[in-house]
């Protein structure tokens, strides 16, 4: 039996084998068997068949398998051999998935150069993708342009929605409205329908139609509830001063996204608006614990605790706000102004004692025997005096209401001298209370003790009011500023049933002649009226003068705690039916006053 020889088919030439492998790869691609396709294409390349198309196909297979790192290697080889626009698109998709959107934009921009080589559907896809990528970069104009091109190729409600948003962000509200209202909502997904309503709500808000804005947001929230929509609703209700609804919405936003500190801050302000100060404080403190760089909240907490009459905490937060000054990015003038204001808050809240002493010299015996000590003298006619006031803790300062205990000693000088007139010595001890938050009105009850024989033993009930146009120090960058003060004092001596009124007004300009030295030329008018039963004078006087004030004892948290003031005034006036006056009742002369405040 002859031996049978099974002849082996001759091996195929390499080129033919490679071509077959490539065809198998293409067939696998058509079957969407990308793994198999990639294996065949790689084998074909290894077998010597290497050209741009096989690299493109291999790149596409790998892209479909989400093996983008490998895909870009193949696609980059492909585009080096032949710059085919479809390879650019694949590269863009790969880089988008590799979180390199900047490179994806580059490849899509390359595609635009040869866009006509692609069918319209792919052209639209290129423009659509480019729009998304531009929008993510914040380039809304470029995004809008790309999406307009996409829509020109064929209408797509999802792209139109993005275009409308880009137009709104670009400030083109009329075109945005046109684009957004032109979309048939039923052609959008539920999520996109909600986004469309969000956009319309923003447009309504910009147009000053808050109610329509709220309606749109509520509809959006019904479609797809989200923290952001609750937040937007909360802000809209706040704008309308519907504080309880604002709180409800912002509480929901905060509950859904507790890590979003922006929502928490908005909730804190909503609580504050609604009068829920303790809740506001709690939220703000939580925010600051997580983000200490939210500087406005420090003083906000100071004011909230002051309003809650928790003075120690208020002082603590105001002091922290003062300590933040070096981190405050605002201009130095704004920071200094705020620092001064905060220091005044701390000084008011943290005050325990204050002392005032004044001393007045009048050049003429015919002048009235009153000084210019403001509240220290007031209804009691005295040329000089000392007062010490004590503001007790807890009850001393509660939500801008102030309670103080004070004691004072007043006296006058003998005419045209600085010799104390012992007969004029007057002592007093009393309580005073500031009942109004915003107005500087004090009510006081004081027991007067006569030390000199011309003094009184009596009860004095007083109401004192003062107002000034600018704070003492003006603004830090001002060289000069307006100076207006008004002081009014009404007193009733109970045992003698005697009414006394005293008032003074000054108008001038304050010049900062050095950091701690203020010079204030001014005009002054003051008047005193006393029921005829009393022994003192009733008069009106006016004149001009200067005040030179030196500030001292600066503290980090309270600013300047002390000042010395020299008042030089020349006044002329007239008594009301007083025998001491000249025959015509008039008087005039120099008035020198020194005031120490500490």
């Amino acid at each position, binding site marked *: 039996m002859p031996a049978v020889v099974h002849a082996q088919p001759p091996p195929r030439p390499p080129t033919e084998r490679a071509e077959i492998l490539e065809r198998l790869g293409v067939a696998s691609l058509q079957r969407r068997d990308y793994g198999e396709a990639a294996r065949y294409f790689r084998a074909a390349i290894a077998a010597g068949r290497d050209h741009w198309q096989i690299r493109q196909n291999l790149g596409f297979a790998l892209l479909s398998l989400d093996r983008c790192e490998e895909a870009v290697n193949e696609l980059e080889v492909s585009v080096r051999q032949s710059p085919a626009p479809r390879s650019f698109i694949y590269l863009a998709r790969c880089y988008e998935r590799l979180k390199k*959107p*900047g490179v994806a934009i580059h490849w899509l921009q390359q595609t635009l150069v040869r866009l006509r080589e692609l069918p319209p559907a792919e052209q639209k896809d290129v423009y659509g993708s480019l729009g998304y990528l531009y929008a993510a*970069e*914040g*380039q809304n104009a470029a995004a809008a342009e790309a999406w307009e091109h996409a829509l020109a190729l064929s209408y797509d409600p999802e792209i139109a929605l993005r275009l409308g948003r880009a137009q709104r962000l670009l400030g083109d509200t009329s075109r945005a409205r046109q684009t957004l209202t032109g979309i048939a909502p039923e052609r959008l997904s539920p999520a996109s329908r909600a986004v469309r309503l969000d956009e319309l709500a923003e447009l309504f808000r910009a147009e000053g139609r808050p109610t329509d804005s709220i309606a749109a947001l509520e509809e959006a929230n019904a479609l797809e509830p989200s923290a952001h929509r609750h937040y937007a609703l909360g802000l809209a209700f706040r704008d309308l001063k519907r504080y309880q609804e604002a709180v409800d919405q912002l509480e929901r936003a905060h509950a859904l996204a507790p890590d979003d500190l922006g929502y928490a801050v908005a909730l804190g302000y909503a609580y504050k608006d609604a009068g829920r100060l303790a809740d506001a404080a709690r939220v703000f403190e939580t925010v600051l614990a997580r983000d200490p760089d939210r500087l406005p909240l420090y003083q906000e907490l100071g004011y909230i605790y002051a309003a809650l009459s928790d003075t120690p905490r208020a002082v603590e937060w105001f002091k922290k706000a003062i300590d933040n000054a070096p981190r405050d990015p605002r201009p130095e003038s704004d920071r200094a102004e705020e620092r001064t204001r905060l220091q005044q808050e701390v000084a008011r809240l943290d005050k325990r004692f204050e002392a005032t002493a004044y001393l007045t010299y009048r050049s003429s015996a015919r002048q009235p025997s009153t000084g210019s000590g403001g509240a220290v003298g007031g209804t009691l006619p005295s040329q000089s005096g000392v007062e010490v006031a004590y503001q007790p803790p807890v009850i001393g300062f509660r939500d801008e209401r102030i309670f103080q205990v004070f004691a004072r000693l007043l006296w006058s000088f003998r005419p045209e001298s600085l010799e104390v007139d012992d007969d004029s010595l007057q002592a007093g001890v009393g309580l005073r209370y500031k009942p109004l938050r915003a107005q500087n009105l004090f009510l006081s009850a004081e027991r007067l003790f006569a030390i000199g024989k011309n003094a009184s033993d009596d009860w004095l009930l007083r109401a004192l009011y003062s107002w000034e146009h600018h704070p003492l120090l003006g603004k830090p960058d001002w060289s000069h500023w307006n100076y207006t003060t008004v002081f009014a004092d009404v007193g009733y001596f109970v045992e003698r049933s005697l009414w006394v009124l005293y008032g003074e007004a000054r108008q001038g300009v304050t010049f900062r002649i050095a950091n701690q030295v203020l010079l204030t030329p001014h005009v002054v008018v003051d008047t005193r009226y006393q029921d005829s039963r009393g022994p003192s004078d009733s008069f009106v006087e006016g004149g001009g003068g200067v005040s030179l004030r030196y500030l001292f004892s600066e503290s980090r948290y309270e600013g300047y705690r002390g000042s010395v003031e020299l008042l030089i005034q020349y006044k002329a006036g007239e008594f009301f039916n007083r025998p001491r006056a000249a025959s015509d009742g008039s008087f005039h002369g120099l008035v020198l006053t020194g005031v120490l405040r500490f």
Partner: protein
Amino acid sequence: MPARRLRLWIGLAAVALSGGAASLAQTPLPRLHGTFIQLSQAHGSWSEDSWRRLFGYLAQLRALEIVVQWTVYDDVAFYPTARYTQVAQPPLETILTLADELGMTVRVGLAHDSAFWSKVNRDPASVVVYLRGLQTRSESVARDLVPLVQRHRSFRGWYITEEIEDATWKDPRARSALFEYLGRLAVSVRALKPEASVAVSGFSNAESAPATFGAFWTSLLQAAPIDVMMFQDGIGAGKQRLSFLPLYLAAAREAAQTTGRELQVIVEVFQQLNDPTGFKAVPAPFERVARQIDLASTYSAARGPIAFSIPDYMTPLRGPDAERLFQAYVRSRVTAKPD
């Protein structure tokens, strides 16, 4: 033609070709101009001899410029100071002295906050406040350093330690805060030593398109008087690929040229490992580093690219892989290139 003669011709041709190759090899291949030094607590215990050994290797590599990445890291200072916790043997003075001796220049980094990346990804209003705090801190460090650095002829300028990338600053308010921060800090440190230049570095995650990246840096350099823009090539950290890096390098160069500033490219000579527990890296293969250097040199200013970092990844002090990279570089770029 007899076989022997044929072999001779082939031999001659080979000689000619190898001669050609030799002359090609002698065309100056670009070198690294210098390196960053990233100071850590460990450097606080280095003796002067340790620093001399390192600088000996730097000299072998013909490094001419040192960038000390920071002199304060959080609360740790690398110079003598009472304001922060200084390391046992503060190395800054030694670095400057050795650079003086070896004819190198030193750019001195200011303060760095390790929480920078988390802090700048917050509400822009908070970022503004945070940057103001950084400014104050770096200014005070620069003031502290002036008496020390001005004793050394090697001192060239300041390095602002915050690295600027293209993902964080898209919000216009945050961007404006950044520009203001860099502007203020650059102005104030320049006032301390007017002849000292100011540098800041940046990189791209390829989050923005090259043109957008370039426009961002153009605006930044127009807003802040920064002299040197240092662009990290991002190859070692995987932020960039060699295939698209030239797009960003070109954009960076355009920004520098438009604003009249200097561009210096930072070549990452490491390969970051995929480790979720933190940053880990090994020395990169020389072939890749060589391609990076060649590319970086095309875009860097005359002084050439700078490595990140030779002390960590490219000296025999850091193990066999680093030694291999060192030796390959010396063979290719130092001994093959006459000074």
